[in-house]
């Protein structure tokens, strides 16, 4: 189910990006999309009855399988990159607001 939720979140994020001109809401939609992508990526490495990929003292004795750790490592990177881009986008939006007094890109129009 979570894998569908991931894809749905990506698509909802794209829908949000297509239907709004408000800068803060654009960044929020972008965050929803990134969240969906992260969930989807994690779901690619999921294994039914898998364990979290950490060796601990109380691992079961019988045969077991870890979930795929590589997508998790990728998502760690993606989360941090997403934070960096969101922060930058917000600063840019803030500066535009200071100049034009609105967050709405359609009100600002073509800035020549």
């Amino acid at each position, binding site marked *: 189910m979570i894998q569908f939720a991931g894809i749905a*979140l990506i698509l*909802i*994020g794209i829908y949000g990006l297509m239907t709004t001109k408000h800068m803060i809401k654009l960044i929020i939609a972008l965050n929803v999309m990134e*969240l969906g992508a992260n969930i989807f990526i994690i779901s690619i490495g999921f294994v039914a009855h898998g364990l979290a990929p950490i060796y601990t003292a109380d691992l079961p004795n019988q045969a077991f399988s870890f979930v795929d750790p590589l997508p998790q490592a990728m998502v760690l990177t993606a989360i941090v990159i997403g934070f960096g881009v*969101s922060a930058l986008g917000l600063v840019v939006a803030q500066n535009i607001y200071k100049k034009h007094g609105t*967050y709405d890109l359609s009100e600002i129009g073509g800035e020549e």
Partner: protein
Amino acid sequence: MSILLVLEWIVGIVLIIGAVACVVTENIWAAIVRLSLLSMLAVVAFALMRAPDVALTEAVIGSGLVTFVFVVAIKKMLPKENENEETR
């Protein structure tokens, strides 16, 4: 049908509903709060997917810092309210 599976379905459906609610709303504060809640749900989803590292990182960065940055960025943009509070 184990409990985890049921939980997985609940989290998935709530995630989708929350994302729609987050994207379609006209109120920015509501959108930010919903994004934060969505992030927390994603933490549960990551935990269900046996990804504790990602869950921890998402909890701290995704739902904590991102929300904080959003709030700070927008709070500053309400100068009248702030000034009133400061002069009070």
